[in-house]
């Protein structure tokens, strides 16, 4: 019988740690499995969508990721961070897809986005628009568009470092690259993002 999100067990899971959720899901609790998906659907989807840049495909790959997570839960070490483990599976799933897919070359100049005007201009004169919340939304959209123009490996490290809050060592574990490479990627990605945001488009 499926347990609904408002069931008593689900309510008790809201405050449970990731390790407890993983153990209960492993024991067959559907409520725990639902809670696990609820906690990580956005980080997983966000990372995959940034990498494959194709929403329906990203959704399918995110679903595959969770199926792999459930099948591999018995191999998860509860002393480690569940988020890094799940994101590693998401990374591998997206990478496998990209390897299978024929490379699609998109010219950066062809990617149109009305919101992606110069961030430098906007932050220099924040009072130019009457509503700063609207400005905040537009800034978010501009950064979102600028991120999409970075190289895939830069996009990934930016998402993992600044959106998911992972440390360099964790990003290295997720992506399977040395820590030094990750630090270099983050540094270059930041500079590339700054350049992309400075340039009015």
């Amino acid at each position, binding site marked *: 019988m499926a347990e609904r999100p408002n069931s008593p067990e689900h309510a008790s899971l809201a405050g449970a740690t990731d390790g407890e959720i993983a153990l209960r*899901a492993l024991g067959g609790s559907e409520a725990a499995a639902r809670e696990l*998906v609820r906690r990580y659907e956005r980080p997983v*989807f*966000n990372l995959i969508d940034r990498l494959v840049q194709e929403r329906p495909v990203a*959704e399918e790959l995110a*679903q595959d990721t969770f199926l792999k997570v459930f099948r591999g839960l018995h191999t998860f070490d509860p002393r480690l961070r569940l988020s890094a483990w799940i994101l590693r599976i998401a990374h591998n799933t997206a990478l496998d897809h990209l390897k299978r897919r024929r490379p699609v070359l998109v010219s950066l100049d062809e990617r149109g986005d009305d919101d992606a005007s110069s961030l430098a201009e906007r*932050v220099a004169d924040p009072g130019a628009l009457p509503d700063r919340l609207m400005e905040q939304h537009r800034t978010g959209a501009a950064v979102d568009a600028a*991120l999409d123009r970075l190289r895939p490996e830069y996009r990934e490290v930016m998402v993992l470092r600044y959106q998911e809050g992972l440390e360099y060592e964790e990003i290295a574990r997720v992506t399977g690259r040395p820590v030094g490479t990750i630090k270099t990627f983050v540094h270059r990605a930041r*500079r590339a993002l700054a350049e992309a945001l400075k340039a009015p488009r």
Partner: protein
Amino acid sequence: MPRMPQDAWAEWLEAERSGALDRADAALREAFAGVPRRSPAPGFQDRVLHSSRLPAMPASRRSEVWVTAGLLLGALGLTAAPLAVVGGLFVIDPGRVIAALARACVGIGEWLNAGASIWGVLIRAGGAVGQAAVSPAGSILLTAALLAASMALVVLNRYLPAERSS
């Protein structure tokens, strides 16, 4: 008043320009709080849970058991069927079986010689099936076959999506 993300962006850009890497890192973390994560379509949790069928045994393992059992039963059936025919010859009068087979062969030969029309074949086959179906043994056999087919469809419907997704 809380700091707006724009302030963090401005601080980050300024820190990048001046080469203050740690400050740039911290400011960018703060600034990214205003960049929304992309989300899957509503109902994602239900779709994942539906396709995972998590509890007890993983779907792939359970379907493996079903497939193995089906293959074993099929192999046993195929092995037993000829033996049953041969064994049946000792129980049933072999003369009648051979005579029935011979009649069937003669009938087929006659149809082929006469240029059997598809409609003729269908009418005869339909008649034979109808006759078999109205007999008690035929009805039981037909019901059993329908039940087996329905169960096979139910099992396929339940396990194929899990197999596809794995």
